[in-house]
């Protein structure tokens, strides 16, 4: 692999990784606050992609409007799922909401298969496939769009979590749930907010990936969800910068792996990496050392 090929693969990897990161953020934020692996998160991403297709085809909307609509729809869906499937189980064993999440995931997959059929649906090419040359690398319009949208969304998230009142409350609640409540924070509202943000980011990921690979299917959330989950754990579950880093890291590793001739093992790369990283850093790249909550 020569240098220009390598930089091209890295660029492709970062693009793919940015979409993993968008999904991984939802896993990590939800885990940070209620210690739940939201197994339905991949399906939220899938539904987001379908809403995007629906907007572009049936309602003839532009891409940005469709993206926003998908994000909004998934926000509502994420908040509703938490209310119906997780909140009633908040005070039960840790396994109960996990099983509930798997149930929601199967439900959404099946529902979408009933509505749209099991076959992948093409995502209309609303963006032409023009290629731009920057130095040794070529970048497509879709890639530029993915990188810009993902960066903007992540910057917005960073801003909210760091400077906005509800974002600070999110940090407080994810560090110490009870004490946050003792400060007058409505923790339930913060949890709803977390689901809303995480789901919106996943929906954006779904639309962008649909556009990038020109296809959406009811099962697209399974492997993307699993990989994004790996990315979240790789980065350190509960850590927002960790999810971003983990996503990019995974995307680049996967793309380089494929370019290096391991395309048969494409989906194994994420898990192999995960195992290796966890062997050396059990709490992930940016994870905090494990501390018992008192």
């Amino acid at each position, binding site marked *: 692999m020569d240098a220009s090929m390598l930089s091209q693969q890295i660029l492709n990897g970062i693009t793919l990784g940015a979409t993993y990161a968008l999904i991984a953020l939802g896993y990590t934020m939800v885990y940070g606050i209620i210690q739940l692996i939201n197994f339905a998160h991949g399906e939220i991403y899938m539904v987001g992609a379908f809403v995007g297709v629906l907007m572009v085809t049936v309602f003839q909307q532009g891409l940005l409007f469709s993206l926003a609509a998908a994000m909004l729809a998934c926000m509502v869906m994420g908040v509703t799922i938490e209310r119906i499937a997780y909140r009633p189980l908040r005070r039960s064993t840790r396994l109960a909401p996990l099983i509930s999440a798997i149930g929601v995931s199967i439900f959404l997959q099946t529902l979408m298969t009933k509505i749209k059929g099991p076959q992948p649906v093409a995502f209309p090419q609303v963006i032409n496939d023009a290629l731009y040359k920057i130095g040794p690398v070529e970048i497509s319009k879709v890639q530029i769009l993915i990188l810009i949208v993902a960066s903007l969304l992540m910057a917005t998230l960073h801003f909210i979590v760091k400077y906005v*009142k509800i974002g*600070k*409350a999110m*940090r*407080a609640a994810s*560090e*110490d749930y*009870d*004490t*946050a*409540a*003792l*400060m*007058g*924070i*409505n*923790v*339930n509202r913060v949890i709803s907010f977390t689901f809303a943000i995480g789901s919106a980011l996943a929906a954006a990921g779904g639309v962008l990936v649909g556009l990038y690979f020109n296809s959406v299917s009811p099962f697209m959330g399974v492997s993307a969800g699993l990989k994004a989950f790996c990315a979240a754990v790789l980065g350190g579950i509960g850590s927002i910068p960790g999810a971003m880093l983990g996503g990019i890291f995974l995307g680049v590793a996967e793309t380089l792996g494929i370019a290096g001739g391991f395309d048969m093992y494409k989906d194994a790369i994420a898990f192999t990496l995960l195992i290796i990283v966890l062997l050396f850093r059990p709490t992930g790249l940016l994870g905090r050392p494990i501390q018992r909550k*008192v």
Partner: protein
Amino acid sequence: MLLEVNNLHVSYGAIRALKGVSCQVGEGEIVALIGANGAGKTTTLRTISGLIRPQEGTITYKGKPITKMPPHDIVSLGICQVPEGRRVFTRMTVLENLEMGAYTRKDSANVKTDIQKVFQRFPRLEERKTQLAGTLSGGEQQMLAMGRALMSKPTVLLMDEPSMGLAPMLVQEIFAIIQEINQAGTTILLVEQNAHMALSVANRAYVLETGEVVLSGPANELADNPEVQKAYLGE
């Protein structure tokens, strides 16, 4: 009475932590709740704050029941707590911790001046305002936990063992500040194992033993009571 706790029963599974605790706190008072490890002091405060639902019993504030209210609404009413072990948000800055204390307030302009007031009371916090709270010393964390609770402008401040783990000098300082806060108009319900200090600042006190109030009365009388002296004052 401003705050009335009536016949509170709380269990953790099979463990009965409170077996009919009653106590009252009048406006402007400092009331101490003393007792040994495991007596149920923390449980009482957490139940008042709404973090634990009692099996039986009522809590009223200004004559209205608050027993079934969620914790954040109780804070909005004016009851705030400095929890046991301080529980500052270690990954947030000192300033952010104070802002969290003011979470229920809508008057953001006054919040700024109140942060300044906290800094006047605890100058060491101002020097460290951009530092993560986790990097503060135990004493500084206690000051931050108190400042944070004060940011909600509480009518009643519940304090759970503010002297825990602090050097004697600092304990004196913390208790002096508790008295100042009280003189500035805040009612205080103080949980302490340091019965000596607690009784010296309190107006009235309750002695809790294995989930029951076994003694109560004016603090100076309790301090002179031979049983209390023997069990809690080490005399």
